[in-house]
C-alpha cells in the first residue's frame, strides 16, 4: 500500500512539470535554458512513469524511466555539443537569432 499521498498527486506534479517545461521551451530564447526546460519535460514524463509503475506494481515503468534518463543525457550531450559549436561559430546564444532559415 502506498503510503502518503495517492498516485494522483504525483501525477499532478508530473503534469505540472511537463507543462512548465513546455512553457519554458516556448518562452525562453537562450538555447541552454531551452535544453533545461526540455529536461524538465522529460522528468515530468519520468515521474509519471514511476508513479504508474508503483501504482501498477510492475517494473516496466521504472525501466522505462531509467532508459529515459539515458536518453535525456544523450540529448543533452548532443544539444550541448551544438551550443558549443554555435559559440565557436560566434553565433548568438538566442534561438530568435537563429532564423536564417524561414519562409
Amino acid at each position: 500500500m502506498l503510503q502518503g499521498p495517492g498516485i494522483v498527486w504525483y501525477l499532478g506534479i508530473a503534469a505540472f512539470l511537463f507543462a512548465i517545461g513546455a512553457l519554458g521551451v516556448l518562452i525562453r530564447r537562450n538555447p541552454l535554458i531551452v535544453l533545461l526546460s526540455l529536461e524538465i519535460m522529460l522528468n515530468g514524463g519520468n515521474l509519471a512513469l514511476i508513479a504508474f509503475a508503483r501504482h501498477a506494481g510492475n517494473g516496466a515503468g521504472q525501466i522505462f524511466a531509467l532508459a529515459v534518463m539515458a536518453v535525456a543525457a544523450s540529448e543533452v550531450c548532443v544539444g550541448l555539443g551544438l551550443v558549443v559549436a554555435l559559440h565557436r561559430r560566434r553565433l548568438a546564444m538566442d534561438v530568435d537569432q537563429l532564423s536564417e532559415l524561414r519562409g
Partner: protein
Amino acid sequence: MIATPHVDWFAISTILVLLGSSGIALLGAVLVPRPWRRTFAATVAGLGSLGGIVTSIWLYVDSATGSRVISDSFYRDRWTALSQVILCAITLATVVLGKEHIVRLDDEHVAEFFALLLASAAGMTFFVGAANLMTLFLSLEWFSIALYVMCAIDYDIEGSLEAGLKYLIIGGFGSAGLLFGSALVYGATNRIGFVEIAQAVAQHGLSGDLLLVLGLALILAGLAFKMSAAPFHMWTPDVYTGAPTPVTAFMSSATKVAALVLSLRVLQTAFPQEAHLWTWALAVIAVASLVIGNLAALVQTDVKRLLAYSSISHAGFMLIGLSVGTALGARALVYYLIPYSAMAFGSFAIVAVRERELGTRVTLENLAGFGWERPFLGVAMWFFMFGFAGLPLGGGFIGKFYVLSAAYNHGWTWLVIVGVLATLVSLYYYLGVVRAIYMRPSSELALATGGSPARETLVNVAVGAALTVSVGSLVAVGPLITLAKHAAATLPF
C-alpha cells in the same frame, strides 16, 4: 542464475549488420589514414547497407508468420522486414551519394558521418520492428539523435547548425510528448507491449479511458511530428534546407518510411479499439498536411524548401492510407512509400549535385538550363517531378491511386476529393521545377563562383537507381503489391 531470454539473432541481423559496419566505419575514423578515410568509410557503409538489404530480404522470406522475439520486444515479421529492405536501400543510396557530396572540408568527420548514417539507419530498422512503447521511444531517440548530429555535421555551411539545433529542440519537445503519452497509456493499461495494451483495453473495457486517449493523443502528435505532418511539420522546411543535402535526402525518405510504417503498426496493434479517434485525427492531419504543404510550396524559390514542403504534402497522402486503418490502406501506404522515397531521395540528390556545382543554395533561378547541361540528371528530375505530381511517369501515380482507393473503400469520398485537389495545386510547383531546369535559357543565370566541378559517376548511379525504382514501381505494380500484401498480412486488421 538469471534466465536471460532467448535471443533470435537472425531477427535483428539487419540491425546488427548496420551497427557493425557503423562501428567499423567509426574505427576507420581513427585508424585509417585521412586520405583513405572517405573511401574506406563509404565502402564499409555501402557494404553494410548492402548486407542489411540481404539480411532483411532473407528475413522477409523466412518470416512468413510473424512473431515477437527477445522477450516480446521486437517484431520479426514481414512488415518489419519489408520496411527494413526499403530503409537499407535508401541508406545504400545515401552512402553512394554521400561518398562524393558530404563534408567537403578536409574530409573531416567523414568517417563519423558514415558511422552515424548507419547508426541512424540501424535505429530506423529497429524502430519499425519495435514491439513496445519503450523500444519504440528508445529507437526513436536512437535514430533521431544520430540525425540531429548529421544535420549539423557540416557546420561550416550556413544554417547547418541552426537546422541541427532546431531539429534537436523541437524533436526533444516531440519526444517528451511521446514519452508522456506512453506513460499515460502505461498508466491506463499497466502495459507497454502493443499487443498487451490492446488486450488490456479489451479485457478491462478501457476503450475511451481518459488516460488512454490522452496518451494516444500525445503519442500520435509525437509520431506525426516525425512524419512531418501538419501542424507538426514546421521544423521540416528549415531542417531540410539547413541540413547537408545528402542528409536531407536521407531524412526525407527514410524517416518518413520509418515513422509511417511504425505508426501504422502501433495504431493497428495497440489501439484498434480507439480507431474511431485516430482514423479521423489522421485524416484531418492528412488534410492539413496536404493543404499546408502544397500551398506553402507554391511560393518557394529555394528548391530544397520546395521539396521539403512537397514532402509534407506527400506525408499527407500517405497518411490517407494510414488513416483509413484497413488492409488496403496498409498496402497503399507500403506501396506509396517505395516510389515516394525513391523520388524524394533522387530529387534531393540532384539538388545536391547542383549545389555542389554552384557552391550556393539551389533556387529555381539558378536551376536554369540545368536540364540541358546534365541531360541525365535533368531527365531524372523531370521524371521525379512529374512522378511527385502523380502523373503516370512513375509509381507515384499508382500510389496516389491506391491511397485514394483506400480512402474511398473506407467511405471517405471527401478525402478522395481533397486528395485530387491537392494534387492539382501541387502540379503548379512541380511544373515550376521542370520549367526552371528546361525552359529558361541558362544564359539568364549568372553562375556563382566557388562551386566545384561536379563528380557525377556515383551520383548518377544513385539517381539512376532511384529513377529505376520510381519508374519500375509503375510497371511492376503487381509484385510490389503482393509484397505489400504479405507484409500487411502480419498486422491485425
